């Protein structure tokens, strides 16, 4: 969660609000921020650290592990209409890639601004070519986009 905090200015620039959530109480959140996270990120955690005691919210999002009594690592990208555009769920020992979350948001924002007129192919990053789906592109993607484009 400190990695997300370190990138918070970038999220803000993109007009994104961050919410974190675990089953810990708000009192424990305060202590974790004070005792540890504020030593990893200047000023501590800048976003709201939500508490989901009992896992009720995690349950409706499908990421609450009832056996362990904790949330798994679920990350949801929600657009300005409140629609889920993407999610990723990992088991606890593997952390997220925050840069990939930012890349996905940039891609979803581009698609939204183009009102669906543009699509971002595999490995797209800001500045790279997009595809404009339409009758003329059917069967012709190979002419304009190479698999190498996904990996640079």
């Amino acid at each position, binding site marked *: *969660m400190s990695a*997300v905090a370190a990138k918070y200015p970038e*999220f803000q620039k*993109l*007009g*994104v*609000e*961050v*919410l*974190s*959530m*675990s*089953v*810990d*109480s*708000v*009192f*424990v*959140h305060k202590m*974790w*921020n004070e005792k540890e996270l504020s030593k990893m990120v200047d000023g501590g955690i800048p976003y*709201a*650290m*939500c*508490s*989901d*005691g*009992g896992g*009720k*919210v*995690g*349950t*409706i*999002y*499908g*990421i609450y592990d009832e056996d*362990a009594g*904790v*949330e*798994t*690592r*679920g*990350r*949801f*990208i*929600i*657009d*300005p209409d*409140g*629609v*889920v555009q993407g*999610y990723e769920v990992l088991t*606890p*020992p*593997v*952390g*997220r890639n925050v840069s990939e979350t930012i890349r996905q*948001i940039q891609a*979803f*924002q581009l698609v939204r601004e183009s009102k669906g007129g543009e699509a971002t192919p595999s490995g797209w990053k800001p500045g790279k070519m997009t595809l404009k789906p339409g009758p003329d592109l059917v069967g012709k993607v190979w002419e304009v986009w190479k698999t190498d484009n996904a990996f640079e």
Partner: protein
Amino acid sequence: MPDEFKPGCARPTGGPVGSGSVPEKVIEQKSQKEERPMIKVGKKAPDFTAPAFHNGKFVNVKLSDYLGKWVVLCFYPGDFTFV
């Protein structure tokens, strides 16, 4: 934006918005729990309220208060865990 609240001795909790006062439904849900489908992309994110710690204050967060903005919602296993 989130309202501040004064914590008492009870541990504050939140939950889904629009549920809570229908116990019959809860029982019904429980028997179906194993088949609960994963939420779907392209569909509305379930609204919720949750107590939160934010910038030194205890506040109540409601997801729908953020309509008009992009939101990244990150669940994680627990405070003071290692990853």
